[in-house]
């Protein structure tokens, strides 16, 4: 009998299906058959997931680098603009700020480095999506590994 390539789940599945089709299934343990098919399915899913995990890792690195650049960009712009000084008045002269809230709000809006804030917010948004993608891929990977370990322990 030709031994199938065990590293390739597709060829292994074909070989098993072919083997079981040629023999009588009446004596075959259906639980064992399901276990084998599930194991093959898990291997297939794992194989599909590995490139996604690499992509998530690369995206994560790019996301962190972009976020650091965006934070630096925004913080230097904030340091140059008087917006931070106006904002600090809330803590030192809260009552006076409250009495003149319209002028105070306008002073903040006029001096905010809006383009830099927009860059920072875009970086944060992109970072959130990247983190979400990476986290979901990692959760899938963990779930598949757990299922594989469960199968191994049962045997």
């Amino acid at each position, binding site marked *: 009998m030709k031994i199938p390539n065990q590293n390739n789940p597709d060829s292994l599945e074909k070989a098993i299906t072919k083997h079981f089709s040629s023999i009588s299934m009446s004596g075959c343990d259906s639980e064992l058959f399901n276990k084998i098919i599930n194991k093959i399915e898990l291997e297939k899913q794992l194989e599909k997931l590995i490139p996604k995990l690499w992509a998530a890792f690369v995206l994560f690195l790019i996301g962190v680098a972009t976020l650091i650049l965006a934070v630096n960009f925004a913080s230097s712009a904030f340091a*140059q603009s*008087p917006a931070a*000084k*106006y904002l*600090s*008045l809330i803590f*030192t*002269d809260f009552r*006076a*700020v409250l*009495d*003149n809230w319209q*002028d*105070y709000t*306008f*002073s*903040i*809006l*006029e*001096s905010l480095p809006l383009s830099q804030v927009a860059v920072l917010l875009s970086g944060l948004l992109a970072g959130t999506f990247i983190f979400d993608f990476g986290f979901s891929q990692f959760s899938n990977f963990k779930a598949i590994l757990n299922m594989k370990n469960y199968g191994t322990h049962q045997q």
Partner: protein
Amino acid sequence: MEPINNNNPDLSTHKPAHRLFKSKTFIWTTVILAELILLIAVFDLGIHVALHKARYTDSWARNYGKNFGDSRMFGRLPTASPEHDGDFMPAHGLAGTIISLDKNNLTLKSVDNVEKTVLVSASTIIRMNFQNLQAADLKPGQEVVIIGSPNDNGQIDAKIIRIIAQ
């Protein structure tokens, strides 16, 4: 024992009255409408802010000679601050150093290297640390943060002056 009431409606076929509020179309319509309202509000706010800045920059430039005593500069001043990349100058806030005092008029050099005049009135709140001060306590060289409103003479009517450094 009470008999079972068979007149109750069949709950399996009952459709709730608030089904419209759960439909995807309704949710998407609401989201799009809310975003449009937000967009219009932000756009309107942007117009207001830009209008204040433009008016102040214009009156600052037109009254430069009167406020700073250099009539030779009148008529050929830039209408925008080069330090702000050609943008108009902020009209309601100012951070900078006091250059001179003349009665109730303060002349300051702002952080963007532009001279500005500030009017101090009796209602202006002047504070340093936890103390309330008077206009007479202001001195040249002090670093201040000012919140106020612009007037037609290219000046800022100060509402709050916070001295941050002597």
